[in-house]
């Protein structure tokens, strides 16, 4: 059955609400408005205002309330409209959600799920377009999921709710309309990376909104006779080192594609780990395709130039291939 990522996530939320009465959802305009990206459309009518709670514009308060409710044994799903607004709640996410278990000597757990959109590409300029998931992945105590496929939009939420610790899910806004077939089989565990396309010549490592571009780049490379292994990380914290490292050991070349800014990014972390773990296997320096180090500009041509593109991925892969073995 073909389904959009938006509908897949809505169905995941529905099933979670049906399965467990500790689950409820809160966020801005998720109810009467139908969700700013229409993910929660129809849920208010089905589940009522107690479980689909519209909040005022108070990110710090409702994220913090999610922390408290989770501490008390509920299973809240908190929706934040976009990652830039999550910064108003960063105090609650980092200073409470991520640290309470440790600070309390293990007495308190925060089984909270926070969903938010991320990413650029819609000309929304410098306060609505950033990709800060790699930044969040810096923080011990939380887990960071980055679904890229309808299967992951459909199947990551329940394991996130089952997790005893806070899980942040970053949904690239350009994926909501993306369609795909839901598969029948069980989904891999949420902390495992998967190979989306197999190839022997080079490893392309990516996640979320950049997966489609990377797969496209791999197709173009294939036409030139370069077969790329495309790894979808799925989780940025924890990172599934074994999967991408095994690929790099096979191909001896790696390029990382990440919509975050380059400096201090998850791509920097991956590159460091590859260097630490597979240095002697490498035939070329690890390449990176990231967003330009600039707040996102509005103008279309500048925004396009700021973001990773299929052609910049192809170029980086060619460069890695050009190195002599």
């Amino acid at each position, binding site marked *: 059955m073909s389904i959009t990522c938006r509908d897949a996530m809505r169905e995941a939320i529905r099933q979670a609400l049906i399965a467990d009465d500790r689950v409820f959802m809160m966020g*801005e*305009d998720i109810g*009467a*408005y*139908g969700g*700013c990206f229409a993910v929660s459309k129809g849920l208010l009518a089905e589940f009522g205002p107690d479980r689909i709670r*519209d*909040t*005022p*514009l*108070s*990110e*710090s*308060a409702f994220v913090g309330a999610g922390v408290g409710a989770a501490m008390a044994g509920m299973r809240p799903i908190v929706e934040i409209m976009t990652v*830039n*607004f999550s910064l*108003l709640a960063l105090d609650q996410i980092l200073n409470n959600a991520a640290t309470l278990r440790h600070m309390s000597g293990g007495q308190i757990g925060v089984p909270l799920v926070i969903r938010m959109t991320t990413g650029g590409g*819609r*000309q*929304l*300029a*410098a*306060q*609505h377009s950033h990709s800060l998931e790699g930044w969040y992945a810096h923080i011990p105590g939380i887990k960071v999921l980055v679904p890229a496929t309808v299967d992951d939009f459909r199947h990551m939420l329940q394991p996130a709710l089952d997790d005893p610790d806070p899980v942040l899910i970053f949904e690239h806004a350009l994926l909501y309309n993306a369609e795909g077939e839901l598969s029948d089989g069980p989904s891999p565990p949420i902390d495992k990376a998967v190979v989306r396309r197999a190839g022997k010549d080079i490893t392309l490592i990516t996640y979320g909104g950049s997966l489609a571009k990377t797969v496209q780049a791999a197709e173009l490379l294939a036409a030139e006779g370069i077969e790329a292994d495309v790894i979808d990380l799925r989780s940025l914290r924890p990172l599934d080192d074994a999967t991408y490292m095994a690929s790099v050991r096979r191909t001896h070349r790696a390029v990382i594609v990440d919509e975050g800014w380059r400096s201090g990014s998850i791509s920097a972390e991956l590159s460091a780990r590859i260097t630490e773990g597979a240095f002697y296997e490498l035939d070329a320096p690890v390449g990176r395709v990231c967003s*330009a*180090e*600039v*707040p996102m*500009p*509005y*103008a*279309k*041509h*500048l925004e396009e*130039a*700021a973001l990773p593109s299929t052609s910049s991925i192809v170029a980086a892969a060619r460069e890695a291939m050009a190195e002599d073995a």
Partner: protein
Amino acid sequence: MSDLAMLRTMLLIRRFEERAAQLYGESKIRGFLHLCIGEEAVAVGVSAALEPDDNVVSTYREHGHALVRGVGADAVMAEMFGRSEGCSGGRGGSMHLFDVQHRFFGGNAIVGGGLPVAVGLALADHLRGVQRTTVCLFGEGAMAEGEFHESVNLATLWHLPVVFCCENNLYAMGSALTRTEANTDLVLKAAAYGLAAWSADGMDVRAVHDAMRRAVTTVRDGSGPVFVEMRTYRFRAHSMYDPELYRSKDEVAEWKHRDPIDLEVGRLRVDGLLDDAGLSALQDDVQREVEAAVLAAENGTDEPVEQLTRHVYADAAEEVRS
């Protein structure tokens, strides 16, 4: 500003935004586009009470605020086309209009994000002994954010020359005021911080002007900040994507009977200051101004991609200017 001039400015904002909506439909303008149609009296009445060098800090619904402060229709339109001739060089778009020459400090698209900055602008004036008022415009939705509460308290504590001007259009996106505020009396709420606070009919440009004049006088007297609630209504969707499931067509129609432009036209007619010919002359005039802006934007230039990472830090030329 004469009553006739205030009417003309309201007409300009209306026409400008109607045209912007069309251009959005043609994909000439992209991103988010928030129209203030229905709320023009607030922009015009507020600005009429200000001096040219007063500071204004605004939100993402700020085309009207920018135009009344003297930012040219051409510079705003070019910005929304992403052209380098735009008031923010094409970097900001509709939500981030800036024009320092006119002391128009944005264009902030984080709800509540402008308030602390307004406090700081006023603090600088206070420290330097500069006689100037800073006006911060925001929607009622911002009053649920911590930044509202922290800013109003700080400005009051330090007696800073700020007018906190709340455009209460009753909805924050799809969230009705009654569904998001435990106490819907915004004046009472603000007054709890110990500053002077009052409200005005935001559909009546003269009432807005009076309320704002009082506020500016209070601030200039050194009596500290003022909070003013402008009771208004947005006639259009929140932005360009909004099925408007949260309010009835009847309610919108009801408010349209109170169109601030119709009200002012009616009054000027009664006073004998405007007739049909006069009104259509004004309309033609603003139409020409808007079309000239559109034409200029169409013919504008795109900044070279090689300059992508400009304006992240001050370069030498920018340093000299500031």
